[in-house]
């Protein structure tokens, strides 16, 4: 029998392309289905969120002005990296209680979903933009622009596919985000951060924290420098809190109640559209429809 002691991974948080521990120094335990301690993860604090938000805001300028095609390439790259580490994700999901087949299914679906949104990066603009008929001498058109920094509270169940399904459309549309991973199943989120970190995604575009929803939800929703909040649980009190806090500076909100993230209906360009502002431009023109040649 081998006497080697296994080297266990420290599950840390992901801020600005780096893996710090929470500034609070707190942790909580994650147990496997047998009730044994599987890992310690960071119990993130208000200040971790503040730091992550600053990172996301700083990264926004560069990410939102990148060519849409390039954003697509980077999302594709994330999928490639995830494919290469499939086994690790399957193991971690099984630690959280998934059956092997379920876990494999979920990881493969997560990869496919990234590919799906990778393709949409340079296409959603054409679908949702419009040229508008107006009654004056104006060329009038509406185009989409990303909102900015988005707070995402990932679904508690289907920890990996839920997180990917919310994150991908947000960043595909040029936003940056701070994500709170599933409270009870955070391991795959931290490993997913490692995938992001090795896939050309600029630091700060996606930041991932682990911790308690009840503690962090107020901060995720009341920070004045956050532009939108995305929440995927059906909890009336939490939704009310988010709505009240969002009203402070008129943040956008997106609530996805009871979505089955494993289903086809959990992916669509409308998820991208949920985090876009519409800018309409009135451009003066000289001629209107009825004008004739001058000679």
């Amino acid at each position, binding site marked *: 029998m081998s006497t080697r002691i296994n080297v266990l991974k420290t599950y840390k948080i992901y801020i600005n392309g780096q893996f710090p521990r929470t500034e609070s120094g707190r942790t909580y335990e994650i147990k496997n289905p047998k009730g044994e301690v599987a890992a310690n993860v960071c119990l993130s604090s208000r200040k971790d969120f503040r730091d992550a938000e600053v990172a996301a805001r700083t990264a926004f300028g560069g990410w939102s002005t990148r060519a849409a095609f390039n954003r697509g390439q980077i999302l594709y790259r994330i999928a490639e990296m995830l494919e290469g580490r499939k086994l690790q994700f399957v193991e971690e999901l099984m630690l959280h209680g998934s059956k092997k087949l379920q876990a494999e299914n979920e990881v493969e679906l997560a990869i496919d979903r990234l590919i799906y949104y990778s393709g949409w990066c340079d296409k959603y603009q054409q679908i949702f933009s419009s040229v508008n008929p107006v009654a004056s001498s104006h060329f009038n058109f509406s185009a989409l622009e990303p909102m900015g920094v988005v707070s995402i509270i990932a679904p508690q169940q289907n920890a990996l596919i839920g997180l990917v399904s919310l994150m991908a459309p947000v960043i595909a549309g040029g936003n940056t985000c701070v994500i709170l991973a599933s409270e009870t199943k955070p391991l795959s989120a931290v490993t997913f951060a490692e995938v992001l970190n090795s896939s050309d995604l600029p630091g700060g575009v996606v930041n991932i924290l682990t911790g308690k929803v009840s503690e962090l939800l107020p901060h995720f929703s009341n*920070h*004045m*420098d956050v532009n939108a909040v995305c929440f995927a649980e059906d909890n009336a009190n939490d939704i009310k809190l988010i709505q009240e806090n969002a009203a402070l500076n008129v943040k956008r909100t997106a609530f996805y109640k009871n979505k089955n993230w494993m289903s086809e209906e959990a992916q669509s360009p409308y998820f991208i559209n949920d985090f876009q502002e519409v800018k309409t431009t009135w451009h003066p023109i000289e001629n209107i429809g009825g004008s004739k040649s001058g000679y």
Partner: protein
Amino acid sequence: MFDIIPDFTATPKIDQVGVEERASRFTKRSLKGETKLNGLMLALNMIDLTTLEGKDTEGKVKQLCYKAMHLLDAYPGLPTVAAICVYPSMVGIAKKALGDSGIKVASVATAFPSGQSTLKVKKEDTRFAIAQGADEIDMVISRGKFHQGEYNFVYDEIAAIKELCGEVRLKVILETGELGSLDNVRRASDIAMYAGADFIKTSTGKIQPAATMPVTLVMLEAIRDFYYKTGKKIAMKPAGGISKAKLALHYLVMLNEVLGEDWMNNEWFRFGASSLANDILMQLMKQKTGLYQSGDYFSND
């Protein structure tokens, strides 16, 4: 002016490792609650709100003056900044815009930022700024001559400008980013103070690195030694690169522990900065509302 002018080739040598270590220890103090609030207010009151760009327009300067007088109307009881810092051509406009608000107008002069001109031109530059109504003059030293070892030249230049200034307070910019070593920073500080500077100032803001804590510490210690020797108080102005409220508080801690309470006001200490004011305002609003703030809701200039 002073009985004995020391030999500037023999100024004290600086222990760089020690200075850096000491400077980093000032950043470990924790300021909370009321102390933090008072510190932020004080820092705000010490700012020389600055715009020194080729693209400065009359409108930009007027807007900055308005900002200086109305930092954040939504927060009653705020102090104003100490001064506006502009190029000589903008002094008249700033002076008029600020009216009787009590905010001073500081003007850079002497072929700012390089200082590469003749004494005649530099004097003319200074005369013009004073005639326009500047309350303070920010001059640059001749770094080239300094590196050639012509300390007397540097000294004479500062003394000549001081003579022109009279009652107008003179800030001498050492441009520490071009001096190369802390030994040189100490030497330049001594030259400036003996030649008649009212303030010594780290940087023009045009060269990186600008103000750093170790450099400022060396200059504060030079001021302290000068005070013990001559009994004359000299003011300090770090400028450039101080854009966060937290960093400003670290500077105040350093000021308090090196020079003491007598220097803890805007007559004896200034921050040369443009974006610091907004960060302090955001921190103050955070203290008041409990919510982290966004730059979106604060005026840009």
